[in-house]
Each structure stands twice: as C-alpha cells, then as structure tokens.
C-alpha cells in the first residue's frame, strides 16, 4: 500500500516537472503503479533503505538508487540492486502467510496487522505529551490535516 501511495506521489511530481527515483522492496506493486524511475531492493518490507546499524551498506544502497537519475532513459525504467538480505531467501516463505492455520471464524487470528484506529498512534507515551505541548491551542490544525 505504501509503495502504491509513493507511486502516485511520484507520478504527480513528474507531471509537475520534478524528476523522481522511487526506491522499492515490492517489485510487483511498483511495476503495477509504473513510476518514472524505480530501483528495487529485494529486502523484507521495513528495510527499503538498508539494514540496521550498517551505514556503509545504506550509503551503497542509496547511491545505487540515486544513480537512476543519470541512467534511466525512459518512463517505467526499473533496475535491481545487487544486495541480498541474507544468505538464503527463506524470509520470503512467511511474508503475508500466517504460519498458524486460519480459523473458521477468525479474522483476528490470521490478520496479524494492528487494528486501524483513528487516533494518533505514538511510538512512545512521552511523544504524546511532547506533541500536546508543542500544539497547545492549535488543535484545529491537527483536525484539518495541515502538517505540523
């Protein structure tokens, strides 16, 4: 879904005259959205730009993506990054395939994503207090969806 959202943003940026490169870890979704320039990294979702505490790898990955500005020569261009997540691809076995059997009544049992809620979801409780402080008296901005 995120890849789709970004693909739609990419198209509007291109339309407005700003060239884009889209980094992606969901090759099929990116192909469907078809942004101008895409660079695919075959990593699990949540690691579009690299692995934890590996700045040197991150730099290679980002540099590899940015190279597309020079190399891409037609809309819909896509290149695969040479990096591999692990020595084998077993991480792919469980993606969107809950290991537990799906129970007959069980939406909850098979859907391991967190429930959709309309209130801000803070990483830390303290963040909620910090946000409250920095927005005191500006609640309307929040509701109107203006960025803050």
């Amino acid at each position, binding site marked *: 879904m995120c890849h789709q959202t970004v693909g739609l943003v990419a198209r509007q940026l291109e339309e407005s005259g700003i060239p884009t490169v889209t980094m992606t870890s969901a090759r099929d979704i990116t192909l469907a*959205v078809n942004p101008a320039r895409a660079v695919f990294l075959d990593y699990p*979702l949540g690691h*579009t730009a690299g692995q934890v505490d590996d700045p040197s790898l991150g730099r290679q990955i980002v540099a590899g993506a940015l190279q597309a500005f020079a190399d891409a020569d037609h809309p819909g261009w896509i290149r695969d990054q040479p990096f591999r997540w692990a020595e084998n691809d077993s991480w792919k076995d469980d993606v969107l395939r809950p290991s537990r059997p799906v129970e007959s009544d069980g939406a909850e049992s098979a859907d391991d994503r967190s429930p959709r809620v309309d*209130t801000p979801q803070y990483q830390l409780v303290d963040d909620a207090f910090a946000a409250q402080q*920095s927005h005191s008296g500006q609640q309307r901005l929040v509701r109107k*969806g203006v960025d803050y």
Partner: protein
Amino acid sequence: MTDHRQPPVNYIDRTRAQYDALGYAPYTWAKNADAGPWAEVSRPLSESRLGMVATGGIYRVGQTAFTHRDDTTFRTVPSDVDAAELRATHFAYDLTDARTDINVVFPIGPLRALVEDGVIGELAPDFYTCMGGIYSQRRVRDRLAPAIVERCHDDKIDLALLVPV
C-alpha cells in the same frame, strides 16, 4: 542450508490470498499500464538539490503521530534533524528495525554522507513523511500528493527521492 534463490515476493498475489482467507473483498490495486509522466533531469546530481518523501509513518518528537486509518496528512522533517528525535508508527510492517535505526526507512545518514562526498549537491531544507498505508487512492491523488508536490516546488528541489515502506 542450501542456497535457494527465490524470486521477489509477489505482494499483490499474497495480499489477495490473505484477504480471501480472511473473507475480505479483494483490494483493487492502482494499475498504470501507460508509461506515465516523465520529467527530464536538467543537471547532474552533484549540482542538484535533493528532496525526499518517505512513507512508513515517520514523525519527529513534538509532532502529532499518524493515525492508522487512511491518514492523508504529512509531516515536515528538517533534513538536519537529530535521528534520535525520529519515531515510526505503522500498522502494516514490522517496526522493530526502523525503531532501532531509522535509516532503514528514512536514510538521512547515507544522504548526508553522500553530500559530504560531493555525490549530491545539497539536501532540501525539509523532507516530507507520510503514512502511506492509505487504501483510498482517490484521497492520495486529491489531497496528499498535491500538497507534497506544492511543498517540493516551494523548496525548489531539483530531484526527489521517494522511499516507501
């Protein structure tokens, strides 16, 4: 262990299968068969101002976090922000690594290093972050995307790097 190469995960097929298993109606993904718009690169990266738009629900301490239901707002994050002030919230991906090292979904460290090396001319003063996990394509087209595009032009960026999660 044997070295079995697997092709890239097909997320559209697997999501369809998961929705089926859950008894949900199938989701209709955006599909653009046409080649789409294309903006020419007018100057080399080393002379360009680069902007970044990232999904993944990243916010800075002091900002309101994203909700987990079709949130089409976005946040402004200065490109020189202290990474320790960044947070991630989302419903659709494992946040463990993003919360350990935000660079895995928001590569500010690598981008700064590439500016220092002269590979990138400069970074835009602000980057933009949003939720991304938005089911309504119409709301992305009509609200979120135009707002971000406007900001990118205000910032006079030459090129944009897009980082979905």
